[in-house]
């Protein structure tokens, strides 16, 4: 068969990336943790709520950081939590540095969308609501983050009994080492009732001030 240049290039590139043990260095360039009524940005507490419950706390984070995104108010708790964490995580992110397809997400949680599933199920004896039903999937939070920041790369959502940082690191390593993505938001975003926790990390190949080398231990 006649050798087609793009065919050869594709195979060579794939072989090279897959075979390369010399993976490019990767850094956590930003970290945002929202849990226990506090927001922690890059290791420093930047906001504390007044223990008034998850809904009131999420709204107070939105207001404290003077965010403006009307769609926020339509989201379920899981999307609000993940969206807020991503918003704060990406405060200094230069999106022009990347193509939309080069940025993606790898997220996980324990309870999938159960918080919204319970709410939706309670509503169906009356009139089932499409605006509630759409949030009964865990990956919708990734969709909300992608819409807000115009990210079009790979997005994955895993369900685990507890945050498996080694697994998440393995997934992100592959995506960045094989040049499927150049930047990735990864971590944990979980809500059930009044219990919530978001731990999001921005992983890039460029070293910035205060960046730490990307490793599972850095996400624990």
């Amino acid at each position, binding site marked *: 068969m006649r050798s087609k240049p793009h065919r050869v290039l594709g195979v060579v590139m794939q072989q090279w990336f897959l075979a390369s043990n010399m993976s490019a260095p990767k850094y956590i360039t930003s970290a945002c943790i929202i849990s226990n009524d506090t927001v922690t940005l890059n290791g420093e507490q930047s906001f504390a709520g007044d223990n008034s419950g998850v809904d009131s706390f999420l709204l107070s984070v939105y207001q404290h950081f003077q965010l403006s995104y009307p769609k926020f108010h339509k989201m379920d708790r899981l999307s609000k939590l993940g969206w807020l964490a991503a918003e704060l995580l990406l405060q200094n992110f230069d999106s022009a540095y990347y193509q939309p*397809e080069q940025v993606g997400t790898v997220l996980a949680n324990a309870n999938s969308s159960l918080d919204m599933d319970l709410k939706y199920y309670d509503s169906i004896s009356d*009139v089932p609501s499409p605006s509630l039903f759409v949030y009964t*999937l865990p990956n919708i939070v990734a969709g909300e983050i992608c*819409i807000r920041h115009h990210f079009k790369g790979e997005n994955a959502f895993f369900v685990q009994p507890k945050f498996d940082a080694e697994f998440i690191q393995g997934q992100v390593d592959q995506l960045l080492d094989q040049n499927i993505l150049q930047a990735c938001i990864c971590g944990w975003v979980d809500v059930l009732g009044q219990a919530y926790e978001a731990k999001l990390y921005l992983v890039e190949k460029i070293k910035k001030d205060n960046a730490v080398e990307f490793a599972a231990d850095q996400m624990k």
Partner: protein
Amino acid sequence: MMANAPDIIPDVYVVADNILSPIGSTTVENLASLQTGVSGVKAQSRPAISNESFVASLFDDEQIKVIDKSYTRFESLLVSSITDALSGLGENFLNEKTGLIISSTKGNIDLLETEAHNDELNQRIALHTSAQIVADCFRIKAKPVVLSNACISGVMAILTGLRMIRSGQYDQVIVTGADVISKFVYSGFKSFQALSAEVCKPFDKDRAGLNLGEGAATVILSKNKLSDSDVKVSSGAISNDANHISGPSRTGHELGFAIKKALLDAGIASNDIGYISAHGTATNYNDEMEANAINFAGLQRVPLNSLKPYYGHTLGAAGLIESIIAIHAIKTGQIFSSLGYTESGVTQTVNVVTELTNTNITHALKTASGFGGCNAAMVFSK
């Protein structure tokens, strides 16, 4: 340069598979149904799901084997499907280098409808609980992986398995998925006005929405080819529309990007693809977007079908069921008719197959899209 490329990247093969659906409990039975135009989609009267009758592809109770009374319906389907897929592979096939990936959108959510709600039920519903039960059933030591990425879950689970073998983490991976249709799921799709009152007609001018379906499916991936006819998993890619959480991209460029990336990674061109197994839900928006994407990737002349008129939309199982049919299309050269299709109802050209077609297929493409704006494309090869 090619000669110097180290030959340490294993190819990954599909060495066994199972489709467990209302039209067959093995892949062979399912293929026989498709060959004779048998569909599982029909009028259903299920008061537990809806007071009104509706059109869907659902299991009868006797079609779901009770393996262990502690298993839920969802778990029974997964275990039955895996058991059949493994049945030809010998006692010692599973070992410490075997991984398990489970794909589902709603798992055990039907338990909300029959059980008292408390913290214990929350745990029982959790997808990771089911995953551990399935892993324990087959004595798989590896931590099971659960992927829940809306309607691309099944396709993405195969891609995840491919990468796990290529990275050297596992020698073989069981990729399985299922979803059951409950009042929860049915009422939600109905609230979206997404359901057709008759058998769905993907890409047709008279298409009027989707049908829901129940099913489970399993592929066993291995770095070792076990038979000459084993099909290779060549590549895959995922993208996001970044447009709307419940409506697809207006241009289809994002699914188109995933398709182009999958072709590039497989080292093939658009004219190397012999068959497209489309997502084809028969909603107005999905089929239009998909037709745009297929044109964007230059695949508009490639024979295409959607299997939704046979299975309905089986959610977390759909990508697996439809990939297995594509894998067998490569083996047999047979492409099934896209049931019910008469005249195009999308603005871009797509080559919808309207009768059982025998051809030669070296590479097949499977596409999928879902809520949250996610898109997936996989290439399987001879």
